[in-house]
């Protein structure tokens, strides 16, 4: 079988299929379980500087071909989270701490205090006031947050970008200027659903983020746009739910992929995808490196 190990975004990964942020990432045990199930790396739930309980329920909702969620960044704060990261590490895969804050200094403070194999900056959650995409939609803030974290941390820093923008490349370039070791695209699309019996917005927070199969074509486009112009690697996320999707995302230019919503099918998804990817590479006699960005080289 062809090797799936890669070096991407400053990390050595056994395979390029990672657990996405906020998915079974609240406890060290569940992260560890993902690593043991075959994830090449695991991203934690986003943690901030103070405990948050998140939004009232419903916090998720199955919609046509996807999931709507508005968890509201529940987390026990980074102070409580170090032990979860230690537990997670027992899984044997790099643990990437997703962190959020409302300013460059808040981000930097967390990055200084927390120990992890890498940081992923959540500049893209579409449904938490004062956080996520409320900063991440502005290139200058993306750059300054990234720069502040880079100065504070001695591990690789990835920046997770929002697709709720007219130009994701602008955001990616800002992250690159800030010194990011990689960008992660995409977070969810801002969305909502309404109960037709009563008119109530279904999510407790009214607005949430759309993920899953529905958004894959948007994610592939974002990855393609970013990968064609950035010098730093792109980690692709959004709707990956089978090995074919992973191939498509890598062809678009992703060095690695993250899997979120597809965990609804259970932890077996990691092995399913990595096995399929290996077989594909074998059949095509290709390496991961050759696959990466192939679509960009097929311009007619």
């Amino acid at each position, binding site marked *: 079988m062809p090797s799936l190990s890669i070096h991407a975004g400053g990390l050595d990964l056994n395979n390029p299929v990672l657990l996405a942020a*906020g*998915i*079974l*990432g*609240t*406890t*060290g*045990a*569940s*992260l*560890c*379980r993902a690593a043991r199930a075959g994830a090449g790396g695991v991203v934690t*739930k986003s943690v901030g500087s103070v*405990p*948050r*309980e*998140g939004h*009232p*329920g*419903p*916090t*998720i*909702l*199955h*919609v046509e071909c996807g*999931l709507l*969620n508005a*968890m509201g960044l*529940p*987390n*026990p*704060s980074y102070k*409580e989270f170090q032990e979860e990261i230690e*537990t997670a590490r027992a899984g044997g895969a790099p643990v990437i701490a997703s962190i959020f804050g409302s300013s460059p200094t808040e981000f930097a403070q967390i990055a200084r205090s927390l120990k992890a194999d890498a940081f992923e900056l959540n500049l893209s959650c579409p449904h938490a006031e004062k956080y996520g995409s409320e900063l991440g939609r502005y290139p200058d803030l993306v750059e300054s947050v990234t720069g502040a974290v880079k100065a504070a941390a001695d591990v690789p820093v990835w920046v997770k970008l929002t697709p709720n923008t007219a130009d994701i490349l602008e955001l990616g370039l800002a992250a690159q200027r800030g010194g990011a070791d990689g960008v992660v695209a995409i977070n969810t699309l801002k969305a909502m*659903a309404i*109960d037709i*019996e*009563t008119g*109530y917005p*279904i999510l*407790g927070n009214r607005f949430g983020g759309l993920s899953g199969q529905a958004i894959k074509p948007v994610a592939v486009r974002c990855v393609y746009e970013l990968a064609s112009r950035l010098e730093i690697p792109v980690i692709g996320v959004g709707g990956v739910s089978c090995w074919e999707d992973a191939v498509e995302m890598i062809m678009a230019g992703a060095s690695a992929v993250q899997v*979120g*919503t597809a*965990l*609804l099918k*259970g932890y077996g998804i990691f092995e399913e995808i990595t096995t399929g990817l290996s077989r594909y590479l074998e059949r095509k006699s290709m390496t991961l490196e050759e696959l990466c960005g192939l679509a960009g080289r097929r311009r007619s």
Partner: protein
Amino acid sequence: MRPINSVIEEVRSEAPLIRTFRLDKNLDPAPGQYLMVWIRGVDEIPMSFSGPDTITVQSVGKATQALFHLGAGSSVGLRGPLGNGFILRGKRILLIGGGVGTAPLAFLGDQAKGAGMAVTSLLGFRSKDDLIFQERFEALGDTIITTDDGSLGIQGRASSGLKELNLFDYDQIYLCGPEMMMWDIISRTREHAKKTQACINRYFKCAAGICGSCCLDPEGVRVCVEGPVLMADRLLESEFGRYRRGPAGDKGPCRG
């Protein structure tokens, strides 16, 4: 997959703070399975089935209070049935319940009796006034009741009733109640842990096995989809009875 709209057909008061709500939908649940009940504009919370079309709710906070304000004719949104259920095994079974945790056991007992099993129940309540489903359990078979204050039955916690029973008599034991009560039982009955099914509680946010808020240390069992019914031997090796996570994912003490 959107919440199903369901009209509350009937509300019955079981105890001062406990009510049973009969819904207009029979979703064909297995005992032990649960629903996510959306009290619109307030919250969505997990509730076990206490019958094929009923839930029995203790008012403890914002969402349950709001539910109590909804009378018959009001409607809620439903997601479910969710999770696994109890599995009926053997010929003689023992139900051990505490407080509102007796709800799914009453439902299970009905099914067991219907299947011709011999059902014995051991139920613990704070006091006589908190008692629920007494007749329902007594109709199933022998029923031992304990109250913390001794106002009815044996005085003490549910485990005080164990001495009246020979657990080797039972093919399977079913357990549901406040966490410390369940912990009390399973830690005292370790040798029966392999035949004890416990329906447990964790903070559920997504109820879809994706958010991680309900995961049990150290294996990361997703209680919302791999539970809420788990074998007691598995619980003995877990965080259960020692700590539980709150809505923020922080570890806290177990209540009850």
